[in-house]
């Protein structure tokens, strides 16, 4: 009676979640989308300042690739700094809120209110506080954007523990610390990663929005703004492509870390059972 479930083989690629074959639909959609864009823009003679052709954007991207890369990395570093700051603070606050519920009662309304502030309004203030050319002004904006999704998701994971789990730990005379270490924190990991993945893209947006309100010429957001102002829309689009690529790669890296650290999670079972 002990052969109801067969041992399951797990290769690294399966743990990561996708094999080359799984990517075919996504690649097909990309190819069709770009093809349609190119075809429609050509067929209807759409003006370049409205929407450039993908080939034109690709050409602009390729010719400016080294400067785009260095500008992208400048902005990415700001985003990464803000991400680390905002997410770290989000996790810390979630832990404190979960450990002392009255704290959550007292401060949660203000966390929600802070999250409701339009980041556009916040950006010039940060630039003013920390200096236009100081990367920390952009990090602060990115951090503000990252904080809430990470905090709220982590907190949910820490607190959505089945009552029987708590009774079980109590039956072992386990203390609060053991309950956090062995139950609440591992239970929170999948939720935390949901927040961390959302925050990757938000951090890039935060950094670029900050740069729109002024920043050094080495920054990608400043380049996109300048290109648009001078009518170089194809170049602006190339900048947008760079920003998106960095956002996607950042997201993918965090998603990979998630897969590797929470491969135990039942959500991974679809990839592990036949």
């Amino acid at each position, binding site marked *: *009676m002990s052969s109801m479930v067969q041992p*399951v083989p797990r290769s690294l690629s399966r743990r990561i979640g996708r094999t080359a074959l799984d990517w075919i639909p996504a690649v097909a959609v990309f190819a069709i989308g770009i093809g349609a864009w190119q075809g429609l823009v050509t067929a209807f003679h759409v003006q370049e300042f409205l929407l450039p052709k993908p080939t034109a954007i690709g050409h602009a991207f390729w010719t400016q690739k080294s400067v785009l890369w260095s500008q992208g990395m400048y902005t990415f570093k700001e985003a990464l700094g803000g991400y680390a700051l905002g997410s770290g603070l989000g996790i810390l606050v979630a832990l404190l809120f979960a450990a002392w519920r009255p704290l959550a009662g007292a401060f949660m309304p203000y966390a929600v209110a802070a999250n409701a502030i339009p980041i556009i309004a916040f950006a010039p203030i940060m630039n003013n506080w920390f200096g236009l050319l100081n990367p920390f002004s952009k990090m602060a904006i990115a951090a503000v954007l990252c904080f809430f999704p990470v905090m709220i998701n982590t907190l949910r994971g820490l607190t959505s523990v089945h009552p029987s789990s708590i009774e079980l730990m109590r039956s072992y005379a386990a203390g609060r610390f053991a309950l956090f270490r062995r139950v609440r924190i591992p239970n929170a990991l999948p939720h935390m990663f949901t927040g961390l993945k959302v925050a990757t893209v938000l951090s890039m947006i935060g950094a670029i929005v900050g740069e729109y309100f002024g920043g050094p010429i080495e920054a990608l957001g400043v380049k996109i703004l300048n290109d648009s102002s001078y009518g170089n829309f194809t170049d602006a689009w190339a900048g947008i492509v760079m920003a998106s690529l960095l956002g996607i790669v950042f997201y993918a890296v965090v998603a990979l870390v998630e897969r590797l650290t929470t491969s135990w999670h039942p959500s991974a079972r679809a990839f592990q059972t036949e």
Partner: protein
Amino acid sequence: MNAVSLKGVSKQFRAGVTALDGIDLDVEPGEFVSLIGPSGCGKSTLLRIIGDLTKPTAGTVQVNGKPAERARRDHEYGIVFQDAVLYDWRTVAKNISLPLELLHWNRARRNARVKDMLELVELSGFESHHPWQLSGGMQQRVSIARALSFSPTLLLMDEPFGALDEMTRERLNSELLRIWEETSSTVVFVTHSISEAVFLSTRVVVMSARPGRVAGLVDVDLPQPRASATREEPSFFELVTRVREQLAAAGAPLGETQEPALVEEPL
């Protein structure tokens, strides 16, 4: 010394609901005692009081001669819930060794014990599986292995097979009896199934509905070891009938009853 000794145990919830009223019960070492009763008779609450997971509002509780809280802190009992309460992030082996980690056993000792426990519940070969890769019955066996891993003398079980199908349940009943004999532990078992209570127990405690009281005791003198054939003996049916009659006399609706999860709201 009794394994469990309850004297005048009462429990009132907020809003004045009396869940338990003046329960006196002694369980001797090595006994297998089932608590059975209608919906809301407080049998799960009583089990939690024995385990010091909730406090009685009156009366005294002793486990192995110690006050309930002391007994819990001394790891005198292991508990099994209706849902297996296994942690998805831990493998089967690591789930079983959780209480051993909390007791600061070293790795070698933990591994040796986990191996023994897997053999006891016949799950050898599944140590590196995750809980969600197992069937419900296998999960519950892991839960039993975990409860017994640190060799407590008392096993508390709260409708452990209530969520399983009839066939799996009967098989696990036989396994539980084998484990009970092999480990010579004391078991307090909450169930809403009359036949399960009779098949497993040396004594059945019949409880009445709100307020929960001990309405009757039925000594089950069926010979040990018991097997599937036991379920077909006339004496088995006689005992089932006696328990059913006592339940009816205690005001339970006939037929097997399902107890909803009680919301613990102490005064």
